[in-house]
């Protein structure tokens, strides 16, 4: 099992913040932001020292909860400060990006980082579509087309034009191309049938997140079936599972902490907006319809002391097939760093060495 540390920049607000999304920019404290990014690098140096394989970053907007709206910027900054660890850009929200720009940035960063980049491409969570005024009902199609264009831009040796449904270019010929050829390890992130199909068809990895082993296992099973249909078998490392982990010295302590977790949604949105988003966005797990998540609380999958967590990781490998765990130790929105550092320490010494051969 490989492990990835999901870095969210851990912004610590000097005063209480409004809880509605979008969080007003005026509530942001520039000094607190600078401190968060400084601390982030110190923390990641320790993560690297503990032997994590990847550090991952994501794209989220208009909130302090995950302070990385431009993941390519976070990934570049991290890549410049750390030397060995792989940087997992998980990832640009494709439907609201310029796919050619994404292809260029990733190729450039992979080269700058001397081939240490891992890439995840995704459709994004529903609320993010408000950020750049994207019609949620077009998100799926724009994602598929954008991902295909990104792959084409990395691979095509001759200048080409693209006559798409949502994207049109007459001249594409990127420099640099990625250092890792034909492209960095790339995952289509999502549990939907469309995402798994895309990954299987294009020989990409599959990334799932937060759901129970049972529900994400349905998606990864479907992905493996589709890979077989296209005549290939993914390696364990081509399935990555992002999850929350609450690790303490003992099970009792972990359970106690778990009960104390603020059971609040990451952010709330106006009901009229939530309803409208839900109506226009449709989601599924391997073809089976599920509700969009708009500001819902995300489950914590791994809870316990080291022995229990090691067993849970073993079950995860069996039931989900994941070869990479992308972990948020301690709730992502929390700026409470002491418990995070204790969990990190504990994970590095008591869990990581024991899950290597799972």
């Amino acid at each position: 099992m490989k492990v990835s540390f999901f870095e969210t920049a851990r912004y610590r607000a000097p005063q209480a913040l409004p809880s509605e999304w979008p969080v007003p920019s005026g509530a942001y404290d520039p000094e607190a932001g600078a401190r968060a990014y400084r601390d982030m690098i110190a923390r990641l140096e320790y993560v690297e020292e503990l032997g994590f394989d990847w550090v991952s970053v994501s794209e989220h907007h208009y909130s302090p909860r995950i302070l990385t709206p431009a993941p390519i910027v976070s990934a570049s900054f991290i890549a410049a400060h750390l030397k060995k660890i792989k940087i997992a850009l998980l990832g640009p929200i494709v439907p609201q990006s310029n796919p050619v720009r994404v292809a260029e940035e990733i190729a450039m960063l992979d080269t700058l980082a001397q081939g240490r980049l891992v890439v995840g491409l995704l459709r994004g969570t529903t609320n993010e579509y408000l950020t750049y005024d994207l019609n949620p009902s077009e998100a799926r199609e724009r994602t598929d087309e954008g991902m295909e264009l990104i792959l084409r831009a990395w691979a095509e040796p001759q200048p080409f034009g693209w006559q798409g449904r949502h994207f049109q270019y007459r001249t594409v010929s990127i420099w640099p191309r990625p250092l890792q050829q034909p492209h960095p390890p790339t995952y289509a992130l999502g549990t939907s049938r469309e995402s798994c199909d895309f990954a299987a068809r294009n020989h990409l990895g599959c990334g799932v997140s937060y759901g129970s082993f049972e529900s994400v296992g349905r998606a990864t099973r479907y992905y493996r079936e589709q890979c077989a249909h296209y005549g290939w078998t993914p390696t364990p490392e081509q399935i990555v599972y992002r999850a929350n982990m609450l690790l303490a010295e003992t099970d009792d302590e972990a359970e106690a902490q778990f009960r104390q977790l603020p059971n609040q949604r990451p952010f709330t949105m106006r009901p009229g907006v939530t309803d409208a988003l839900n109506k226009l966005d449709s989601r599924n797990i391997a073809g089976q319809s599920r509700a969009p998540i708009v500001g819902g609380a995300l489950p914590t999958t791994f809870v316990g002391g080291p022995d229990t967590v090691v067993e849970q990781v073993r079950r995860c490998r069996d039931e989900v097939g994941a070869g990479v765990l992308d972990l948020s130790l301690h709730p992502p929105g929390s700026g409470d760093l002491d418990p995070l550092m204790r969990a990190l320490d504990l994970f590095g010494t008591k869990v990581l060495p024991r899950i290597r051969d799972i």
Partner: protein
Amino acid sequence: MSAPAADFQEGHVETDGFRIRYMQAGQGAPLVHLHGAGGLRLTPAHDLLAQRFRVVAFEMPGFGLSPENTKTRSMPELASTMARAAQALGLDTFNLMGTSFGGKTALWLALQAPQRVPALVLEAPAAIRPEGTEPPSGTPEEMARRLYAHPERLPALPAVDPAVRAKTQALVQRLRGPARDADLEGKLSTLATPTLVLFGTLDRVIPPAMGRIYKDLIPGCHLVFVYDAGHSIGAERPQAFVEVAGDFFERHEAFVVSRAETVIHP
């Protein structure tokens, strides 16, 4: 999707001892189309092109309703027959569009008569193929699965008369030439005609990766991928196909300069 070819009128022209059928519609600069190995099939793209050009879609001798063609020996010969057929219709110069098999005919025609062809568009051309590539054949359903990325979205193909199929297949095998045709490829570096090569990203007859070879061989060649289309781009994504093909016929290499307007509220 509306039924294609509502306004197309049938005509015939005598050339090289053949009575060549064609379908014609539209006003403006002439645009000659040479079809693929399956014969002349009008698509919604023809209708859209006819709104901007005088479109003449030939049925090449030996295909479709025409008598068996045992006379034409080679692709260059077929190309010169088609050039004379256009001449017989009074078309001294004409934009030229070739589909698949007809893409190779069109390339030969442009090489033989460069002064007559201001611009050339090749839709999924079959002039350069991986070894072992065969044209689609079989039942209409089998044909549709090869020709289209999404056959379920399109009207069913008509059944083909076995006699027509037999005579056509013999002709195609005789004329199409080798997968890599050294004679043709050796001449492509001299082709000065502005050329646009289009491939559907889901082409299941000719891999779209063949497109880059045309760019390697033809100076000033442009390559455009039509997303989510199969081999028959004009049938599957007619608006996308005609927008870029029409723009290329009108502006040649300047078609790379966008004229799209993005002002939302002036």
